[in-house]
């Protein structure tokens, strides 16, 4: 049903309707998988941050590596447009409710992910080309970092030099994201081989 929905000419309109109502886009098993991966991604980043002693480059790279590997595996398991947006929304809302993270920037972050997904859909979609999961995660994380940098700039607009620290942190964590893409693709291949991800 969802594949037909996205390959049709009126796909975008129907996608927008499906995203707002939740009808016809995701099956229950997709939603459960997205929920579990979002929980695992959030919990593992918190565990690694606590184990690594906070903000050091190694922990930041490792956290992002695990996060992006999980996201790539998720997109290969649930190859539907909207899956990445929903996963980021769930992870973002969890951070919002529990830690007050991304209070103002959350809508922009969701919009950035959705824009990336539209681009991936234009390139053929995840169903036809599963390897697009890696560029989808790389682009959405880049877009989200740019949105965060913009909000950091707004917060320190009187002294833009202060944003340089945020820029350094974003750069380190993005190295982790890029490393995690390769790890995620390799992991997905092994999981498919083990029969845990079906084509």
């Amino acid at each position: 049903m969802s594949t037909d929905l996205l390959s049709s000419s009126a796909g975008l309109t129907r996608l927008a309707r499906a995203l707002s109502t939740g009808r016809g886009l995701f099956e229950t098993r997709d939603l459960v998988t997205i929920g579990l991966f979002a929980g695992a991604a959030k919990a593992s980043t918190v565990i690694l941050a606590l184990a690594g002693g906070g903000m050091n480059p190694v922990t930041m790279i490792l956290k992002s590596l695990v996060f992006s590997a999980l996201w790539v595996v998720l997109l290969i398991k649930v190859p539907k447009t909207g899956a990445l947006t929903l996963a980021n929304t769930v992870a973002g809302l969890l951070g919002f409710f529990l830690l007050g993270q991304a209070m103002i920037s959350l809508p922009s972050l969701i919009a950035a992910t959705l824009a990336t997904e539209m681009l991936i859909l234009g390139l053929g979609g995840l169903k036809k080309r599963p390897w697009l999961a890696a560029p989808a995660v790389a682009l959405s994380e880049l877009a989200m970092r740019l949105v965060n940098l913009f909000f950091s700039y707004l917060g320190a607009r009187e002294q833009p030099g202060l944003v340089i620290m945020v820029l350094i942190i974003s750069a380190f964590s993005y190295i982790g994201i890029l490393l995690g893409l390769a790890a995620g693709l390799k992991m997905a291949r092994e999981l498919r081989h083990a029969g845990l991800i079906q084509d």
Partner: protein
Amino acid sequence: MPDLSRIRPAGADRLGLAPEVRLGLTLLASLAALAADDLWAAATLLAASGLYLILQARLRTIALAYLFFGAMAMTALGCLWLLSFVFPALKEASPAAVIVPFSRLGVSVNMVLPLALHASLSGLVGTMNRLPIPGLVKLPMLVTIRFIPTFINDFSQLRQAVRLRFRGRAGLLFWCRRPFLWWRIFFMPLVVRLIRSADELAVAAELKGLSAETDFGRAPIILKKADRATLALGAAAVTAASILQVFHAAG
């Protein structure tokens, strides 16, 4: 499945505010702090948010948070100092140009800390039931909330298994020499367990008839006296900061 009610939030909750009130006030204060660029308006918001924090957290917790905040501020100032060699104009910045951005960060710390200290996974389910969240997002969020304690449990079991397997030889240096081994024996089993749990839970959810279209219902938001008083004081502080921003900045 671990009992969620046993995971207690940290910190003494003196006001006992509803989570929705904390969320609303944090959002309001963050927006106001972002908009304010006058020194007095920023100071008003910082003072009001500081009072809000003192009423809801232990002094030791506040001191620790501010120690971390201070370290971050020092690092940022260090970066700025290094940059000033490349861009000499940065040295001529007025005090307000340095203080106002840090006061925004201070407001954020003051507002977010009570939220993080008093939030709990079990309380989050109640908060979600009272807020207008679509079923498409609510179902995965409920799954996430229920699954996090299980995932942490799996993580600690794997850690114990690795400790038993290497009998104390697996120190930091050991893992630094063998990063791929860490991936193979620690992360891969976690992901396999994750996918198996997803398949099992999906069958259980389908059998119970849960889907994105399920009507989860919505509980009413009930505000106590302390909630209403805090909301009123928060609104008054933001109004005062707005007046200072408009008139003092213009003057």
